[in-house]
């Protein structure tokens, strides 16, 4: 491998990885206070990318405005998901099996809605700063990569600030530590669950928006996003937001370099193989001390 290839793969890997990091963070946020893994997580990314295409490509709205409307709309769908499905499930303390089935049900509903409105064909979105490849250290990278890198970095940093320095973020952490004690301290756990689900839908939407110019948008990509986001979350430890981010970037790098050495058809095989390997060998994640998973 030449140095130029290396630079190119490194940048592609990190930018793809930061998408996975955003998806993984969505899983972590919900899991922290409810112990629920939502199989509908990837559908929010699909909705995000499809809505973004509608607003910016079809309706020709400015990028920033389309972005904001999309995020708000998907956040609304997330709120609806929480009120109609998550809340009864959590309140009725449904079994894990039933939670899996119900969230799969939701993902099927969202998938059908996406297919009805946007059809089955893949749709593209042009990169945020024009479609000319960008030269970096003499290597050519995808024009979307710097956007992905910078925006996801900002969002990941904002999430850390949110979790550590705001009232809501600390309430979320308290719920994760001990929901009952948090309740006794006057924290409304129901409220915390609500905004963590909405927030994770928003994170999903953003990751979908950012990745679309690189790949494309299609109604049935949700399950792949779900599994990859979960893989990243598992890699870093599902309880640990910082670990989930690092796990995402690691996964992106593994995938990009793996594809370079094998072939692009094996892209998902590599990621999911990594997931299986981590689950079999160290299911608590590679950044968590044993037993804290």
């Amino acid at each position, binding site marked *: 491998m030449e140095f130029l290839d290396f630079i190119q793969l490194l940048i592609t890997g990190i930018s793809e990885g930061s998408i996975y990091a955003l998806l993984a963070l969505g899983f972590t946020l919900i899991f922290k206070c409810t112990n629920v893994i939502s199989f509908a997580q990837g559908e929010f990314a699909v909705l995000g990318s499809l809505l973004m295409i509608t607003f910016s490509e079809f309706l020709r709205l400015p990028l920033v405005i389309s972005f904001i409307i999309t995020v708000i709309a998907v956040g609304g769908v997330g709120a609806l998901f929480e009120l109609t499905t998550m809340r009864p499930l959590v309140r009725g303390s449904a079994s894990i099996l039933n939670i*899996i089935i119900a969230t799969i049900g939701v993902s099927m*509903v969202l998938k059908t809605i996406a297919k*009805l409105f946007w059809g089955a064909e893949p749709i593209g979105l042009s990169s945020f700063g024009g479609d000319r490849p960008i030269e970096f250290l003499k290597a050519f990278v995808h024009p979307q990569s710097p956007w992905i890198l910078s925006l996801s970095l900002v969002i990941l940093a904002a999430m850390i600030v949110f979790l550590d320095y705001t009232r809501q973020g600390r309430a979320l952490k308290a719920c994760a530590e001990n929901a009952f004690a948090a309740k006794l301290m006057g924290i409304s756990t129901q409220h915390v669950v609500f905004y963590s689900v909405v927030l994770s839908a928003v994170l999903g939407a953003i990751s979908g928006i950012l990745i679309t110019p690189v790949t494309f948008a299609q109604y049935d990509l949700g*399950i792949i996003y779900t599994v990859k986001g979960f893989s990243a979350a598992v890699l870093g430890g599902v309880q640990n937001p910082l670990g989930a981010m690092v796990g995402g970037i690691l996964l992106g790098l593994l995938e990009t370099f793996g594809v370079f050495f094998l072939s692009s*058809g094996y892209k998902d095989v590599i990621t999911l193989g990594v*997931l299986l390997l981590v689950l079999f060998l160290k*299911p608590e994640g590679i950044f968590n001390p044993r037993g804290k998973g």
Partner: protein
Amino acid sequence: MRSVFLESYKTVLLFFLLFLLPIALNKPFVYTILNISGINALTALGLLLLVGYTGQISFGHAGFMAMGAYTSAIVVAKLNMSVLTGIVSGFVLTSIVAGLLAIPVLKLKGYYLAMATLAFGIIFSKLVIELKELTGGPVGIGEIPPFSIGNLTLHGEKAYFILIWSIVFILYQFCKNIEASHIGRILKGINIDEEVVSCLGVEVRRIKIIVFVFSAVLASLSGSLYAHYMKYISPEVFSADLSVFLIMMVFLGGTRYVWGALLGALLLNFLPEMLRAYKDYSIGLYGLALVLIVLLMPEGLSAFLVKIYGITLKRFRTPMIQN
């Protein structure tokens, strides 16, 4: 003895009614749907034991169906061997792969098990697409010979209907017997509390692996039957969606009664035909039904029907002198 006799009498009646169904409906496509339902029902029965009774979810069984289908197709269509050899080599391959997968995968629980099996299913379907020389890649394998034993070759929908549903009948009875035996109680015990069962001296790990491999072999059988029935297979038939579809059959039908799996398989194959006008919405409607079933009647349709049956029976038996 009486109850055993009664139970098998009910089974025979159930299947007698089922065999009357195509005659009663008298439409050409009914056999096709019934045959596909029966093929799905075979996998659903295995999943009922694994997911419904033992509580170990799998989203990878479409992968095992693909394994059976492709092994059959390659052995019979490409190597020109007999159909039975194809099916049995499917069994052998599937049990080896399922056994090797089960050892690490069944250490996982809940979400992790679900994601791991889903990952396995997706990996397998991608491998089927990539290994073009063996599997025909995205195009698949066509011109698979029909099912035959010795000189007897099956032709026509009715012949397949009898073959498929006879196999379903035998396996249905088998699953019912398992449920009624001490093994059934062990499986249900594992679902409720693994540790308690293992404290009672049951080798939980071994039993879980055996059930996993058994359900995988059933999936392989149904895949082989599918290949010989449809005569054409392609990777998109055995996608992750099929795995979800199969799990849906088990949960819509309900896990309390064995016939729930049959009900689920029949329902999910007949509904698309009946709701043809709403074809675009059908997946979404199923999704909605799943959410509602989990929230409103977590034991599924079969338990719900039995409950309603019980209530109406009571109405008839007790004289109505409320006022």
